[in-house]
């Protein structure tokens, strides 16, 4: 990566560049008409002995006690930004210095990341626990380019992140060389397709309004990342006297609630239904979302299929019928989708052979209702919006905010006779739920003593060590670990799961888990992550960040030594083409040499154990690691695992 601070430059070139930079900055302080580029030869070289020891110019101002970046920090503080995650970059050096000195490196605190993708990934995980954005500083051009994939994940996942990218807009002020490479005409263009809003403030008052506006937009459902372009000169030059700067008042917008008529009609359909089904995906923005969904499901005694985008519904609730999703879709007469991002993929089966085909799963006449803030934010280029779905009622509204009104409407319509029918219906689901747990436990016994260690065994061993604590599983459970945690563990609190990456970009898991652990730190929660090997290797420097900032995260490696999803894809192609079916490992495995993740962790100051191949050694290793994490330090246990 070609950053100014990292590029190999010999001393002579460095001095030459610095001299030119000083000259450029000095020139900016005088009227344009006074500039005489050719006159430099007549004055003492800026870093010569005479220049260093002579009388300072009466007009040249070399310092300022109040740079513009201080005001930018005031804005961050006013918004309650606790952290800014960043990899250092000179285009935002003014902001960086103001955070650590003017701001006292507290609220926000600067988090040192080894890659911009890690910084944004941390912010992603933090927001899903804390319910508000973390700040991220990004270096001009190259830093934003590094961050792009992680921003896309957060956008697809509808998660707020408050990002600032540095840029030297005024071409006449740029240092020759590197600063030109790190400057851009329209900095946000690169990511405009997958941020909710961006702006380029050209004055500090403008920065104040846009800074507050950006936060408000990011936090308005549907939430999403926002990007402010912070001009380098605006950061570094002095705040003018009597500038009259003030931080505007922030008032967050209430989330959009579903139309009252549509809510009433939805309630009528649900109460009249014989086989209602509730689908929930990115529903529960807050713990209230989970509480509301329990209330609605219990009122109707309707089954819930939790698709896992958020922690929506307790895994062991009798009405949790997630394992039976397609069957229930096929038998339902009314289907209520709550923030379901791939409704078409839920209502249809899709067969991926040489000729792709699909089939509608719903029965004729079934009514489909969607409540989704997703409908309020659509873009064109990136296709994360999934296939168009035919529905009967579509509320472009925040589902969590709409549920209280829907619950009231349902309550008004339930008669004693309907309640009797609902209760009968519910008893059947309770029996099915018990059977599903028994079935999961039986399935977990297969390969119980195998080496490599089965994923079911790994999850059972981990659960035994954390179940009595206040915990969060910060990693995605499907498809990487075959959803074993949701099948075997007892999730009943909103913070116990944070869903997945959103855009399915690999490299999310490690930083997002760390961000979640950081948010959990002040709550005293134990954060665990079942960490995929391929994901960690995108930016393993996140381990150093965890040790440096003492963020207690327990990472249990799901080390199947490959990009296993891709391995299966290549196998599929080889089979389809009738050739080379033993070569799918080429380009898809992480073997030879086998990575020693324990040593990798240890090299960055993280407690590391493994590789563990004997399942009987796993429990004690996890116990030791839990104790390390509970003392406030990160730990990693490398477990060599079965594929899924």
């Amino acid at each position, binding site marked *: 990566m070609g950053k100014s601070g990292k590029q190999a430059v010999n001393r002579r070139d460095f001095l030459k560049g610095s001299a030119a930079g000083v000259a450029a900055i000095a020139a900016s302080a005088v009227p344009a008409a006074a500039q005489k580029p050719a006159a430099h030869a007549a004055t003492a070289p800026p870093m010569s002995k005479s220049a260093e020891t002579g009388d300072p110019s009466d007009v040249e101002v070399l310092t300022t006690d109040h740079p513009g970046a201080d005001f930018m920090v005031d804005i961050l503080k006013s918004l309650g930004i606790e952290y800014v995650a960043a990899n250092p970059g000179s285009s935002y050096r003014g902001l960086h210095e103001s955070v650590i000195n003017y701001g006292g490196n507290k609220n926000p605190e600067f988090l040192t990341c080894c890659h911009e993708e890690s910084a944004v990934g941390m912010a992603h995980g933090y927001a899903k626990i804390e319910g508000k954005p973390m700040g991220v500083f990004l270096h001009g051009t190259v830093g934003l380019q590094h961050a792009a*994939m992680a921003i896309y994940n957060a956008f697809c996942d509808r998660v707020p992140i408050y990002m600032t990218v540095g840029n030297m807009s005024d071409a006449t002020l740029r240092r020759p060389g590197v600063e030109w490479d790190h400057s851009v005409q329209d900095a946000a263009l690169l990511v405009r397709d997958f941020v909710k809003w961006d702006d380029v403030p050209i004055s500090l008052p403008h920065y104040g309004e846009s800074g507050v506006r950006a936060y408000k937009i990011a936090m308005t459902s549907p939430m999403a990342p926002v990007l402010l372009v912070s001009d380098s000169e605006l950061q570094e030059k002095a705040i003018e006297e009597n500038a009259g700067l003030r931080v505007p008042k922030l008032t967050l917008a209430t989330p959009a609630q579903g139309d009252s008529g549509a809510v009433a009609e939805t309630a009528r359909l649900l109460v009249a239904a014989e086989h209602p089904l509730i689908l929930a*995906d990115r529903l529960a923005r807050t713990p209230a979302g989970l509480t509301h969904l329990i209330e609605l499901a219990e009122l109707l005694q309707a089954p819930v299929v939790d698709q*896992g*985008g958020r922690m929506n519904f307790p895994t062991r609730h009798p009405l949790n019928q*997630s*394992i*039976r*999703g*397609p*069957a229930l*879709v096929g038998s339902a007469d009314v289907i209520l989708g709550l923030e*379901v991002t*791939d409704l078409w*993929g*839920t209502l249809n*089966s*899709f*067969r*991926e*052979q040489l000729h792709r085909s699909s089939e509608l799963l719903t029965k004729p006449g079934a009514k489909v209702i969607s409540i989704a803030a997703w409908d309020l934010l659509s873009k064109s280029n990136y296709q994360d919006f999934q296939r168009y779905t035919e529905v009967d009622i579509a509320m472009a509204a925040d589902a969590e905010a709409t549920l209280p009104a829907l619950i009231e409407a349902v309550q008004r319509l339930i008669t004693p006779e309907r309640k009797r029918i609902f209760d009968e219906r519910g008893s059947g689901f309770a029996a099915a739920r018990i059977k599903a747990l*028994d079935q999961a*436990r*039986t*399935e*977990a*016994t*297969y*390969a*119980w003593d*195998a080496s490599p260690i*089965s*994923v079911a065994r790994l999850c*059972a*061993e981990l*659960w*035994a060590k954390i179940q009595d604590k206040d915990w969060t599983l910060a990693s*995605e459970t*499907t*498809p990487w670990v*075959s*959803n074993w945690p949701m099948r*075997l563990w007892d999730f009943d609190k909103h913070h116990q799961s944070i869903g997945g990456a959103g*855009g399915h*970009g690999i490299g999310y898991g490690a930083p997002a888990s760390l961000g979640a652990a950081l948010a959990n730190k002040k709550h005293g929660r134990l954060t665990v992550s079942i960490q995929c090997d391929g994901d960690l290797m995108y930016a393993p420097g996140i381990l150093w960040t965890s040790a440096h900032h003492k963020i207690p995260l327990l990472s249990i490696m799901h080390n199947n030594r490959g*990009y296993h*999803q*891709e*391995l*299966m894809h290549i*196998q*599929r192609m080889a*089979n*389809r083409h*009738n*050739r080379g*079916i*033993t070569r*799918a490992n080429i380009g898809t495995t992480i073997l030879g040499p086998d990575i020693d993740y324990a040593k990798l962790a240890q090299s960055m100051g993280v407690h590391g154990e493994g590789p563990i191949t004997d399942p009987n050694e796993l429990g004690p290793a996890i116990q030791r690691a839990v104790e390390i994490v509970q003392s406030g330090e990160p730990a990693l246990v490398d477990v060599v695992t*079965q*594929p899924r």
Partner: protein
Amino acid sequence: MRSEKMRTISENSPRRQQSRHAVLYAMAIFVVALLMAGSQARPQAKPAPAEDAKGNAENGKRVFTSSGCYECHGREAQGSRYSGPRLGPDPISLPAFRAYIRAPKGQMPPYTGKVLTDAELADIHAFLESLPAPPAAKTIPLLN
């Protein structure tokens, strides 16, 4: 590479997989092998007679691994709800096993006689039959 990864992962999104694979699982008793394979492409190879001779379990274990069956079904054929069902112990009959692998009805990619002989299929089937029964869940404290 990243865009490719996002594309392929997206095709197998958890939500889509949840429906897709649960449907697949509903057919699990028929879906015997998601990724059964032989060795290299052998366009000249002739399929072995479709007789139900007892296979070689030891060779079947080797082929099960080398040809990628384990990728979706696990190295002990234990299966996964999100990639492929459990295959053993107590696999379905060899004729049903062979029929499904040659012309799968679900997501499983087809394995023709060009890449996996009937003899190799029989060996894999023998390996699946040889797998020991697991301990009962009630006897495992971690599962109770």
